[in-house]
């Protein structure tokens, strides 16, 4: 079946991507299938589990419910864009060190949601972390190591900021 296609210009992880994709494809599908950015996962494709979370202008967005055309010209961040020059973000090292990723499938969405939280609230309480992550399901960890990892990353980011100042 020949679907109607649209020209898209997307800014993802600081890079511009020009592409032609079927007009009905979600941002999730375009990221994974058109651009090969498979770090963004999916658990339901119905906006229920948070697994496909990406950041748009720093805010968590469910890529399965987003049409790429809506986010043209905006800053899209996927898990592939969280590290800096190949150096993992403190959230990525904290999640690794503390065992906050078990099967790892919810992890990209968790890390991006946590990144948005820490940018808004650099020193969140446990309750704020729980609230922020409540839309991201994880079936492996029981969430506790994820909370600890976010707290550890917050502390590390706080220290490095202090160092810069």
């Amino acid at each position, binding site marked *: 079946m020949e679907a109607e296609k649209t020209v898209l210009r997307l800014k993802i992880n600081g890079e511009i991507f020009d592409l032609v994709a079927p007009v009905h494809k979600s941002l999730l599908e375009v990221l994974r299938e058109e651009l090969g950015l498979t770090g*963004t996962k999916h*658990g339901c494709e119905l906006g229920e589990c948070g*697994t496909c979370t990406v950041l748009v202008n720093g805010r968590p967005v469910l890529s399965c419910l987003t049409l790429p055309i809506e986010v043209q010209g905006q800053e899209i961040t996927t898990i592939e864009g969280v590290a800096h020059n190949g150096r993992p973000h403190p959230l990525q090292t904290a999640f*690794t060190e503390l065992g906050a990723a078990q099967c790892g499938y919810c992890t990209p969405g968790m890390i991006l949601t946590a990144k948005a939280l820490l940018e808004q609230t650099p020193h969140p309480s446990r309750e704020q*972390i729980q609230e922020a992550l409540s*839309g991201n399901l994880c*079936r492996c960890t029981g969430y506790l190591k994820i909370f600890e990892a976010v707290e550890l990353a917050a502390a590390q980011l706080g220290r490095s900021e202090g160092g810069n100042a």
Partner: protein
Amino acid sequence: MSTREFSFVGKPGPKVDGLAKCMGLTKYADDLSLPRMAYGKLLRSSEAHARIVALDTSAAEALPGVYAVLTGEALPTQFGIMPVSQDELTLATHKVRYVGDPVAAVAAIDEETAEAACELIKVEYQPLPSVFSIAKALAPVQHAQDRIHEDFGQGGNIHKVVALEFGDTVAGFRQADHIAEDLFFYEGNTHLPMEQHSVLAQYEANGKLTVWSATQTPHYLHRALGVVLDIPMSRMRVIAPPVGGGFGGKDDPFSHELAAAKLAMITGRPVKITLTREEVFYAHRGRHPTLMWIKTGWKRDGTIAAMHCKSYLDGGAHGSYGPASIYYTGALQTSTYQVPAYKFEGVRVFTNKPPCGPKRGHGTPQARYAVEIHLDKVARQLGLNPAELRRRNLIEPHSVTVNWLEITTCGLRECLEKVSKSSGFNEKHGRLPEGQGVGLAVGAYICGAGLPIYWNALPHSEVQLKVDRSGTVTAYSGAIDIGQGSDTVLATIVAEVLGLRPGEIHLVTADTDLTPIDLGSYASRVTMMMGNAALQAARRMRDKLLAPVSRQLGLAAEQLVMKNGRVYDRDNPQQGVSFLETVQLAEAEQGPLTSVGSYTPPPKLGDYKGSGVGPSPAYSYSACVAQVHCDRETGEVRVEKIWLAHDIGQAINETLVIGQVEGGVYMGLGEALMEEYPFRTKLGTHKIPSMLDYKSPTAKDMPPVETILVKEYEERGPFGAKEVGQGPLLVVMPAVANAVYDALGVRIDELPLTAEKVLQALEKQAKGGLGRVGPKELPPFEFPAAIRVEPPEESP
């Protein structure tokens, strides 16, 4: 006890595959794609039970972009995970057995076209009487053609019946001073892994089939592909990429895997099928809804004289692991308590619902839930503290149970003591303010099944190591990491022996072209079995590497230590060589450096029919205290804290062990409080096949967990290790239920323990009743005479 100091074993540390997962670099099955790849879709039955009268695929085949349409006739061979449950077809031919049963498959240019083609397939169904409850499934079936499986099972819709008696329970109950009886119902629920099942199949012109699948059991999938496609296993390659959560939901061979392979063969294109979330609910293989009856006889001193258990399992539409599931609802009651005489009767029925199978704990959570609440009630009847009642009955280490399970180490007494102490159970029990309560439960789980799924005398796990002049160490294992950390266990064990860091070990896993056999990530078997195979391979490699160094330094090999990337004299650490030099010396002398290790469990002790389910090289033990706060107005139960002590033997990686405990507690809380798998009683459609409606605990629902590790060194485990993936879940549900009783004085004898049921129970209590919600009676069903098994002489 081992007094050895480890470099890595037992310490906290990251997963070796953790960083890649956190960077988004790990490739799961659905992340793979190949040039010219087609997308596959399954058409699933809209009927719960019906004869297929006509199936017309012509319109679908004519749709532009469709490469192939597959129906059941193309794959007429039945399959199933167990040799005794070969009752599944890839695609239904004559009849469908549940809403969601695969009927046809399409491969097309894209997913939308494949979906559209599925909609164009015309299926004419002639409905048959459908069965959705245990009670109805036990009733006789009037017409043979109305049976769910006409040629399987033991008549009507009964899949399998078992009845065993160990020792003389009649005499045991006669000698008892106190007798107690209870009924429980454990609702079904599902695994809900975050990753939807996905498969990619490629068939090459030379006749070789390659299948990548999100599976916990690549070896069993390999076998099923061979049987159904009629291709020798030696002409296939099965690869399991890292799995995004399994919990038992990816233990069976599935229709989508077989259909993708066949479509790849027909179209000459790679074919990928990824299930939608709704389809994952239909693939299911989740927890069996189970009705249970338990009767115990007690002596005046608070010890058990006899126990009798009955289980009624709703198996759904297929056999799957069901024959094992039935036995598991009866096999492990004796692994925690000394039971001198024990009778178990179990029946599994077919119903027109997605097939049930092995969810984390496989059959034992239901039974453990029943026993542990029952004991809580008995403690009250006997005027004993629930911890004290259990203490008087604990199984002894190094003993044989009445049903011939060989118990080796058992840290249960220590688990019970430590969890009671750290939670303040004895001080809190019966003494917390109204609405608050504590509950206790203990449990045990196998460290791998003693027998393979299909009978054979071959090793259960094999590991190969290769070391070369670059200093590279590569471990090859068929074990698949489903998040539990098998890669880290493998790397840690090899690294510990060879004196390297776990992250330095290269791993090649779960690829039948490259790796030796491991039976799969199920039954909590991987640390015990793959771990022992890895340990043997690593020790053999160590011997090869040390021989030339030993000669060069003029020191006995036993005098040499491999640590921190060096080989050196135990008494003079300055004298030594680097790991790289060691390897080069050995390769110069011996040529390519490889070693192998394997593991076969010890033989089972029992020789009765059914004795294959329950035996394990060792058993892990857990004890749990839950503290809850209940709202009398809303019925809401809030878990304030969980304390869980687990006898791990020896942690290989402590971070991962605690992670498994916390994950098990989490999943147990979901089962205890909210998760259920309900169907519309007339249509047989699943009520909530979505992640929004299927309630599972979120980040906001998770209480703090205090994990206490008990380390009772297990001779049979690698470095003394036992399992942790499943045992800790078992004790959570009964601990919560017992805590609710302590808080409110009401008994909710069925799961999930919802606010609605709490309110119902409170209402009954207010009217002067028992304040109980739960099953009231057993369905009429006569079990056959039990097979009488004499207990071992030294049993309790």
